């Protein structure tokens, strides 16, 4: 979209934009304040925090950021050995990689097949995806948990990924539109040159949709990194950082300066996704779009 040429605008538009700018500034302050507040309190002693959470620290205790890795512990609900920050960081990383990969791969394969091939049953499958996404079937959580229990998937990293690999989701909708937008002439030319479907998919199509795949993966990664509810039910023995932050509030008796260290852990935990988003903002915004739903 054409950027605004502020100087050339009539005074009425200038006023509107200045009003928006001021409103954006206010909202930015509201959004950034909790993070700033957490950062300042992470550098205080527990006593300072309890006395006045608004004051600046008398001594800036940067050591709290190192102590996160040595002191931060979260006791599992079932009791037993507390989880360390590094354990949870490792769990966060593997859950993120596995969950994002299986989910995006599954959506991608389905979207490619339905967008580019007209095979018997393809219309029905597309209708099913739309149905699953637009018709609310509520309260299946207990049944899903029972199935996972019966299949031995709860607390089992080797099999739980099967549950996360659903391709009938919003990523499908975005990818379907993207695949539809890729000109078929490339794959037709490759076909004439003798390439088979796998070669076309891997060497011709995938490079063209990589930006969209990356955008979806990054968007999903932020959600997975911050997801506490799935590990809380399905992976209780493998808590990620988000779930660990939740558990920590019941484990704070284990740690001196517990709240400041907790705030330091919060700041450290959200930094990877903030940095990732900052670096990939344009990629996400230019590649995440969806059209209408017909089905």
């Amino acid at each position, binding site marked *: *979209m054409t950027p605004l040429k*502020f100087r050339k605008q009539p005074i*009425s538009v200038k006023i*509107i934009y200045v009003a*928006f*700018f001021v409103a*954006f500034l206010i*909202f*930015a302050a*509201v*959004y950034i304040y*909790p993070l700033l507040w957490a950062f300042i309190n992470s550098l205080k002693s527990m006593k300072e925090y309890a006395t006045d*959470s608004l004051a600046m620290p008398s001594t800036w205790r940067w050591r709290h950021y190192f102590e996160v890795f040595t002191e931060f512990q979260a006791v599992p*609900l079932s009791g037993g050995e507390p989880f360390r920050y590094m354990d949870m960081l490792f769990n966060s990383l593997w859950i993120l990689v596995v969950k994002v990969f299986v989910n995006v791969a*599954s959506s991608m*394969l*389905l979207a490619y097949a339905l967008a580019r*091939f007209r095979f018997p049953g393809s219309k029905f*499958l597309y209708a099913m995806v739309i149905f*699953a*996404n*637009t018709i*609310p*079937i*509520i*309260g*299946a*959580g207990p*049944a*899903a*948990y*029972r199935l996972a229990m019966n299949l031995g998937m709860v607390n089992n990293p080797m099999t739980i990924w099967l549950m996360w*690999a*659903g*391709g009938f989701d919003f990523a499908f909708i975005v990818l379907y539109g993207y695949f539809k937008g890729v000109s078929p002439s490339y794959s037709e030319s490759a076909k004439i040159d003798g390439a*088979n*479907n796998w070669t076309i998919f891997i060497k011709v199509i995938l490079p063209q949709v990589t930006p969209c795949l990356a955008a979806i993966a990054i968007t999903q990664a*932020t959600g997975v990194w*911050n*997801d506490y509810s799935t590990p809380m*039910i*399905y992976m209780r023995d493998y808590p990620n950082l*988000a779930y660990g932050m939740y558990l920590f509030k019941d484990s704070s008796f284990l740690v001196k300066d517990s709240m400041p260290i907790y705030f330091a852990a*919060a700041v450290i*935990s*959200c930094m990877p*996704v*903030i940095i990732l*988003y*900052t670096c990939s*903002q344009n990629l*996400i*915004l*230019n590649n*995440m*779009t*969806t*059209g*209408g*739903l017909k089905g």
Partner: protein
Amino acid sequence: MKLFDNIKKNYSRLERRDFLFAYLIVLFPVLQFLIFWFYVNISSIGLAFQDATGGLTFKNFEMVWKGFTDKDMLGVNLLDSLGRSFLLWIIGEGVLFPITLITTYVLTKKIAGHYVFRIIYYVPGLMGSIIWTLLIKEMVGYSGPITKLLVGMNVNLPTAVTKNGLLRSEDTAFVTLILVRSVMGVVGNNAVLTGAYTRVPDELFESAELDGAGFFTQMFGIAIPCIWSTICTLLTFALCSVFTCDYNVWLFTDGTGGYGTSTIGFQLYNLTYRLSTGIGSTGYGYPAALGVVLTVMTLPVVLVGKHLLEKASENVEV
């Protein structure tokens, strides 16, 4: 076999090779869907009619009815929860979505500082509900800056608030949740909407500007009609979540949903969580029956809403 014969008869070898490839790549997603969506949902309906021994019963639905008319097995009035869910949803989709539509448009026009603003607006989403919620909880606690600010401004707060914070009083807990939802919800769908806005051809705005179209005419007359199908898609998705979002009630209330904050989404998560821990579990039947009842209640709303949105999408001229 007849299907294979038909395929063999009606399609060329090349087409059959394409079909084989397509079937191979959809095999895993379809199997996953059949097991973890189709089977799960069918089994959920079955569980609603089963007692603990697997026998046929309607007791679960009686308990749901009791939940709506009095209190459910966890001591919650479901009608109240439904009302709260709906109110939070209306604020999200009826108030915040239009605001997001406008703010995203202005940011797409590359207003001064747009890059930084975009990052900052994502901060709550990027921090994640757990960290954001726990920070807000500390801030609205009895010694938190927000409670202190209200006390400092001589706002007449209930004693429970000054003693325990804004989330521990019937008078203020849900209002606090609404305010938090309002502040956090403005950024929702920003990425998808920006993607859609950036695809609107520049020529349309340039010619409109030459014709003397002002800011609002360009936004409501060009930009929004051009991305109308995206808007309809997002609203259709939003319709499905009318009663299922828990709006972080679990985190705000330490899993209790107390002080008049329980929503239906919270209640559904709470029931599943209790099953997983085995502590205070109601069994599978009651949550499944609640799900069936809610689905039946939501389905007509969603179908009518979807139909209207599709009609609206067809009627928009660009």
